[in-house]
């Protein structure tokens, strides 16, 4: 049973596509004159079957697309190869005796509307092919004397068997406009020289092929991107795993510690931890950042109890400073952001873990007890594996979330942390940066969109590789029956 399901799901997508095109061709050849006419005027087949309204709508759609392709589409698609050639320049107009701006090319608009045109035309073309198949199907229905849907029938079916189309149209349109199109554009920007020196409208940018990717992996006098990328990437990975696993293990420990029968007032303790979630994260992060500032309260307290001088004596804090550089020294800052992230994350993990812990079958513990397992062994061999099994997909998404965890790093270190590493500073990176905060700085402060796009693509590659490996490791081994009694 499961075998057939798997086989159906592993249908070859390439086969499905070629099948579709073959179907279009045979439908066109075998169809009557109105099917063939539909290839010219899309509504023809519907008019023949008296689906007047549908015919008009489809034909109007065709007219709009042709106008679009001839005007808007042609204008931008003809320039997309070069991304524009007429540079922005003031021109003196002798009639008005004033300086005016010439009819310049705006590279980004050409890229944006070019990509939009390609997508619109591609969708319209698929719709056009689909239309031939629909018309042919309609002809076959008519020939075998079946009921031809009226327009009202179509409206009714939008509420019933095609209700999913009604539901999904607007959300999908939103996703296309606000995620897919922007992503395609940013991916294409990675192959251009769009940066501070090539900023529309003042100047043009153009295609440079794989130059930016080469720059990201090269380390020489001209560019230290290779060096910085290696450093930032490794810290991003360390951070993502440290942040995820510290929250996971400590959160479960805390949850089971509170859940323990010996602990009184369970609710009070839980509430104590949850209060910190209720304050918005950016407020707590900014508060904590000032707490640990150079002249912050933490430093005053540390100096008062002699912690500062103690740390200096054992060499953990620089001796030339009279404070502990909590968020300004590379090593201190890295440890601190992980600790602060534990502070932020544990209440969440505790909430989730409490729910899961209560669901662990009590029989598992009872039989372990009979076999003489200590509480520690029960934790290692029952609680942990069970939690891992239940929360593994959540953990994987959590690692991806942490790779992109902008808020913690940005709000804790922005404007405070400065790097002393010249090679990093040259490409506007810092030791504490994640790929995503580096990307943010490159765009918001340096306008280096080309390298930001390359880094964005790298983030995707890292996340995708990790997700694929992790899911295969977790789901590949079928452990489902292990915990079912």
């Amino acid at each position, binding site marked *: 049973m499961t075998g057939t399901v798997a086989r159906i*799901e592993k249908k070859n*997508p390439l086969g499905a596509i070629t099948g579709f095109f073959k179907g279009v061709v045979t439908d066109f050849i075998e169809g009557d004159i109105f099917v063939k006419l539909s290839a010219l005027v899309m509504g023809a087949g519907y008019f023949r079957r008296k689906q007047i309204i549908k015919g008009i709508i489809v034909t109007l759609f065709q007219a709009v697309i042709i106008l679009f392709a001839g005007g808007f589409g042609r204008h931008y698609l003809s320039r997309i190869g070069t991304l524009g050639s007429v540079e922005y320049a003031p021109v003196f107009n002798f009639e008005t005796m004033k300086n005016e701006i010439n009819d310049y090319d705006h590279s*980004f*608009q050409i890229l*944006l509307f070019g990509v939009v045109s390609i997508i619109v035309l591609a969708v319209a073309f698929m719709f056009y092919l689909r239309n031939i198949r629909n018309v042919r199907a309609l002809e076959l229905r008519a020939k075998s004397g079946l009921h031809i849907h009226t327009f009202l029938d179509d409206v009714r079916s939008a*509420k019933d068997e095609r*209700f*999913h189309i009604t*539901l*999904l149209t*607007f*959300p*999908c349109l*939103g*996703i296309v406009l*606000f*995620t897919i*199109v*922007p*992503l395609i*554009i940013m991916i294409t920007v990675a192959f251009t020289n769009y940066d501070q020196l090539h900023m529309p409208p003042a100047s043009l940018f153009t295609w440079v092929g794989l130059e930016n990717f080469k720059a990201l992996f090269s380390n020489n006098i001209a560019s230290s991107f290779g060096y910085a990328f290696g450093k930032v990437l490794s810290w991003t990975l360390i951070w993502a795993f440290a942040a995820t696993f510290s929250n996971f293990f400590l959160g479960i420990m805390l949850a089971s510690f*509170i859940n323990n029968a*010996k602990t009184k007032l369970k609710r009070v303790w839980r509430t*104590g*931890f949850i209060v*910190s979630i*209720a*304050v*918005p*994260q950016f*407020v*707590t992060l*900014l*508060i904590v950042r*000032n*707490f640990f500032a150079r*002249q*912050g*309260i933490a430093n*005053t*307290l540390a100096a008062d109890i002699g912690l500062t001088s103690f740390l200096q004596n054992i060499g953990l804090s620089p001796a030339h400073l009279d404070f502990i550089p909590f968020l300004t020294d590379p090593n201190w800052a890295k440890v601190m952001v992980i600790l602060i992230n534990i*502070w932020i994350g*544990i209440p969440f993990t505790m909430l989730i873990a409490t*729910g899961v812990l209560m669901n662990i079958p009590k029989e598992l513990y009872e039989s372990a007890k009979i076999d003489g397992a200590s509480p520690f062994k029960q934790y290692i061999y029952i609680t942990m594996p069970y939690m891992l099994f239940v929360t593994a997909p959540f953990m994987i998404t959590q690692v*991806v979330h942490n790779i*992109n965890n*902008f*808020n913690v790093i*940005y709000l804790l270190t922005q*404007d405070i942390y400065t790097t002393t590493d010249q090679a990093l500073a040259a490409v506007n990176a810092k030791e504490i940066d994640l790929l*995503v905060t580096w*990307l943010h700085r490159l*765009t918001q402060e340096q306008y280096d969109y080309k390298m*930001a*796009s390359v880094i*964005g693509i790298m*983030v*995707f590659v890292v996340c*995708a590789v990790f*997700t694929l490996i992790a899911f295969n490791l977790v789901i590949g081994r079928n452990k489902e029956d292990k915990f079912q009694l």
Partner: protein
Amino acid sequence: MRKYKELQIMSLTLRHLFLLLLVLVWLAPIVWLVFNAFSEFPGLNIRKFFPDSYTLENFRVLLFDTSDTVARFPVWFANTLKIAIFSCIVASSFVLMVSYAMSRMRFHGRRSLMSIGVILGLFPGFLAMIAVYFILRTFGLTNNHWGLVLIYSGSSGLGYLIAKGFFDTISETLSESARIDGATEMQVFWFIIIPLSKPIIVYTVISAFLAPWMDFMFASIILNSGIATDWTVAIGLYRMLDRSFINTHFARFCAGGLLISIPISVLFVIMQKFYVEGITGGAVKG
């Protein structure tokens, strides 16, 4: 025997002392925020944990004093409320629509759509944001609250997984019997599934409503004009801690943080309750 009992009491006391210590660590910054909100000293008190003297002045200035050009809290609150309400309406309907279609209906391409959703989730959200910014600018929608509404709600359909999980648990026999009685799919959606889904609807609505209050990154990119009356609460509070303002505005920042924490935490507690119900309650109903 007595010795054993003493040992047990010791371990119990230690256990609770340890928890007390942890809770203190977790509460310290929050307590610090609350006390500083009432502090008479306007800047960052670096000598003592607790302020020397207390006042309600910070709240008065924040809420009623329009002469403070840095802190325009009532305006920020109104802006954020407007953005939150509109993006909440669009985003919650999108999420419920997508999750119903993905959970209760079977159609060609459903699985591929879901895989596309997973793949899109692997791109850093900020990457798309850069292009979205330029697109919105082309249409004059930057430094505009409607642009921000579009950003919060536009792609919200991707966050359908939790609601889908809930719809999955509602028994198929309910909709099946309604269909036998002649109900269309839309009627099943409106009259059978939606009334049964109160927990997940409340959860979806509140989490969509809260997003604009918590978001700093997207708002700071779209509302970058530097005009204080355009900002949302998050950007406004962040700017109050600029190096040039922190010595006059830290206490007001704490007051503002405290003020928005109250409604947010109330909503959050409600949401948590409904979230747990949403995860566990659906199965019981079947």
